[in-house]
């Protein structure tokens, strides 16, 4: 059986492993949701690495159409070629531009396809890909050809929950919600990324980090990726551990907070809390 497990660099919980293995075994898409910065996109890279398959990434934008993942017909250049009398104009196949899914379907070996942030696209986008992801085939109208996947690719779809996805689409997927890691897991994640970090620095930084997440009313709670960036900064700046220490009750503004707090309201909220704490304590 295909096996996806936690690696040295990516700590996956058991439920995530089961979900990935189920999707790989049954060759169905896996839909991954979760707070921003909990490693949804990185998962696809890790799965590709673990299975030894190449990764094809398709990043979705608000203007992305489902058709673009299959193929595009470049009519304008054909029109121009027609006017210039180019010989290529007689074969319409010359103007079909392959999309990411076509690439994946025609690959010689199985691949991992990442459809990143599917919720960014139009509300009909997932519906337009139903058949393509279910049967792993599609029809090219211009050349009257059906493209069938030689190897069913492993499809990983991520969503940030900005739009609800249609039921028909969900029914065809496996689903996993990446929970925010608890302290123990977080320690393992930090260890995996920075094996040579000082023990006490990591401990104090995690204290501050979880304290920051506890603060009520934050617009954007810092997540794993923010923590890792911040730790890296702390290590580069060679911050002394003492600057991170604070007693339990008191809220302090963490050094280099720019890596953790991403908007001015949150920074402001923090400053107010710190002020109140100073006055109270």
């Amino acid at each position, binding site marked *: 059986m295909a096996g996806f497990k936690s690696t040295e660099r990516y700590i996956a919980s058991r439920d995530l492993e089961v979900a990935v293995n189920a999707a790989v075994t049954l060759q169905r898409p896996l839909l991954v949701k979760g707070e921003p910065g909990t490693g949804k996109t990185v998962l696809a890279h890790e799965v590709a690495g673990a299975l030894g398959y190449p990764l094809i990434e398709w990043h979705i934008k608000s203007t992305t159409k489902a058709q673009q993942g299959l193929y595009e017909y470049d009519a304008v250049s054909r029109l121009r070629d027609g006017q210039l009398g180019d010989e290529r104009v007689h074969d319409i196949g010359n103007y079909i531009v392959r999309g990411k899914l076509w690439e994946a379907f025609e690959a010689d070996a199985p691949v991992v396809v990442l459809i990143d942030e599917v919720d960014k696209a139009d509300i009909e986008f997932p519906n337009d890909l139903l058949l393509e992801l279910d049967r792993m085939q599609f029809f090219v109208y211009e050349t009257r050809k059906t493209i069938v996947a030689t190897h069913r690719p492993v499809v990983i779809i991520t969503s940030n929950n900005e739009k*609800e996805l249609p039921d028909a689409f969900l029914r065809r997927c496996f689903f996993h919600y990446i929970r925010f890691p608890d302290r123990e897991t977080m320690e393992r994640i930090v260890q995996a990324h920075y094996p040579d970090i000082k023990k006490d620095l990591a401990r104090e930084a995690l204290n501050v980090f979880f304290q920051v997440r506890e603060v009520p009313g934050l617009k954007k709670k810092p997540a794993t990726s923010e923590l890792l960036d911040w730790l890296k900064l702390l290590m580069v700046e060679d911050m002394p551990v003492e600057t991170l220490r604070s007693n339990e009750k008191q809220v302090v503004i963490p050094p280099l907070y720019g890596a953790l707090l991403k908007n001015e309201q949150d920074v402001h909220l923090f400053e107010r809390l710190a002020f109140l704490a100073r006055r109270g304590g």
Partner: protein
Amino acid sequence: MFSHLILGLRSAGLPASITEYMTLMAAMKANVAEYSVDDFYYLARATLVKDERHLDKFDRVFAHCFKGIEPEEGVNPQDLPVEWLKKLAEKMLSPEEMAKLEAMGGFDALMERLKELLAEQKSRHQGGSKWIGTAGTSPFGAHGANPEGVRIGQDKSRNRTAVKVWDRRDFKDLDDTVELGTRGMKLALRRLRRFARQGAATELDLPDTIKSTANNAGMLDLKMVAERHNTVKVLLFLDVGGSMDDYVKLTEELFSAAKSEFKHLEYYYFHNFPYERVWKNNRRRHEEVIPTWQVLRTYGPDYKMIFVGDAAMSPYEITMAGGSVEHWNEEAGVTWIERLCGHYRRSAWLNPTPQKSWGHVRSITMVNDLMEGRMFPLTVNGIDEMTKELSR
């Protein structure tokens, strides 16, 4: 094989389908779960649940369906290290209590009794005065009233495996808090308007015409589109009278803002909590009542339902039949709100009381839970969040 699981899920209101059930069977056959109950739980979750809002419901149904399947993971007396219990007892008990404990025969005697009981007892226990369990007066168990009590099963450091994963209900609060801001109320409501094109094609679509003409290698190809219509349909339920009188002005502001924004806007009044009847004209509320069933029949599930109310009331008004302060209601408010929320997939509750005080009123927490966390403060940002939720 696991049909009672899927039936249980469906009756709990989870949209699990036959296709998904078949997928689960296929995955079982492909040996993804590898004979471990935990893995089966993860697999069933990944297959049958497609929205994190339903994860908690799933956990509850799963726990109910598979009660007793897992081999009993009770505490083995040999496994309880005495030093650990001792340390815990020292931490938990005051000096006076320790003296009392000594009077009972000392720590060792207590431990002996615990071992005896553990050997005797076979199942999980709650309440009562002898067995080990939760909330009892026996010296053993959690949340107890006995000062000599030994806490078992509450501390996660040792007996972690005793708590089954689905019993932990990790997904209970996947909600985010609502923030305040400064943008105009009308601006927020405008978000609800989602321009969608419906009906016959009547307008010339210039960009599409140019594109298809180019595709057509220069031959003119006219393209038409439907006229723009505001298709958002809103059903408003406004709480009047009682504790809401303070907020009538706020509510009216929202109401007049809303009226100009939608093509279809229907509004009804209720008092404290929606039951089997609502009314359209507040002055004639006793003469012209409209059965809620009629509202459900008249307006399709494509309407977005918004309650406006402070949700401050006695909990009985929500949970009990006959709990209403105004009349005898045959069915409890819970039944009605579940029925309404089941029919209207997009629903929210706007609450004019400050969000900070919600936690202090029990009924507000209850209503918020019933709305699955879709209660928003009646502030500009609250409305913004609500419209975002409603137009997803």
